[in-house]
């Protein structure tokens, strides 16, 4: 059974979708991701969909679901790297993904998550990693 890997990066979970999502895979991802959030107590979820070229309303709904579920479990969701064609399709389908944060690429998405979570929660990591990257 094909599965999409979920990587843990400090307080965040990173998911990069490299294949076109079919329904079964998307449902599994939703399930796995929420389980991971509850298991690790992650504060943010970053989903990279830059390799996804086809979406339908189901896929849009799954993304929305993941965001709502994560919100309930106190984790922010950021979707990054959406293709122009995908964005247009979602808008035409009327799915504007309210409640999902978006960013251009993984780097900017990480910055956004850092901003959203707030510095106090990340204190421990920051001290280990050196100066906060938000001060640029």
């Amino acid at each position, binding site marked *: 059974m094909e599965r999409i890997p979920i990587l843990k990066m400090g307080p965040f979970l990173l998911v990069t979708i490299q294949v076109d999502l079919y329904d079964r895979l998307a449902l599994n991802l939703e399930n796995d991701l929420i389980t991971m959030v509850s298991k690790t107590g992650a504060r943010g979820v970053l989903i990279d969909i830059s390799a996804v070229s086809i979406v339908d309303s189901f896929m849009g709904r799954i993304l929305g679901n993941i965001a709502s579920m994560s919100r309930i479990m106190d984790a922010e969701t950021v*979707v*990054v*790297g*959406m*293709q*122009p064609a*995908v*964005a*247009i399709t*979602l*808008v*035409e389908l009327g799915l*504007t*993904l309210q409640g999902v944060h*978006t*960013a*251009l*690429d993984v780097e*900017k*998405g990480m910055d956004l998550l850092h901003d959203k979570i707030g510095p106090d929660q990340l204190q421990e990591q920051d001290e280990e990693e050196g100066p906060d990257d938000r001060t640029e």
Partner: protein
Amino acid sequence: MNKTAQIIQKKKKTILENWMSNQLSDQALRDDLISNEDLHKQSEELLNGLARAMATGNVDNIYAAEYEPVTEIISDISVTRARQGFSPRETGLYVLSLKQAIADTLEQELAGQHEQLYKEVTLVSRLLDSLSVITFETFIKGREEVILRQSDEISEISTPVIKVWDGILALPIIGTLDSARTQVVMENLLQEIVNTGSNIAILDISGVPAVDSLVAQHLMKTVSATRLMGAECIISGIRAEIAQTIVHLGIDLSNIKTKASLASALQLAFSMNKIEVKSNARNANFGLRR
């Protein structure tokens, strides 16, 4: 081979001369658009083609294979004429004056044989009428091509995406926004966002003459798509009357950032990207005062 075809073949020279003098004496002659030599050459070519086609014995079906060269020549002529700016009347008369020339020649050749003359003239008439219909069809097609090309050009010219700063794009929209335009605008904008990695897009609508609920919906679609890509959208250039119509129509733009001018939108974009623009003059003044 029927009589007309023989006569046309035999009297080609006279017919051409007649036809040319018909055309040259016509008030609608456009010697500013086409030289007499070119016209002569064109006419001769067409007449030759016609004579050759009629010589095959087919004199009523213009869509048959024998007439392909003729229709090709005539289509070519009408399309070029449409592009050169000839009026429909001038193009139509071009073929119709040939009918006159042939009829005149037939009259001379068949003097006294009224029945024969009548038959041949109707035949030629019918043939040339179909020819002029083809002329018209292709003429209009040529014109439509011109219109299509122009509208393509307009929609291409009017949607430039400008990078105004690192990470900030501006998109001045000029002219009415319809669904097709919105699609082009959206695609251009989103592609440019990917190419430049910008996180703010300013949509300037000061060139949009009117905003109705449909245009507003298109704007909101663009904003939503931009947001999905991970960039912020600011709408600027909202004139007083546009603000009035938007409120009167009950369109809700509250979840979209709007600014009155491009300058203030740029300022907002700067503060969102944490960019500070400092004036150098102030320091200089301080220096002078001290």
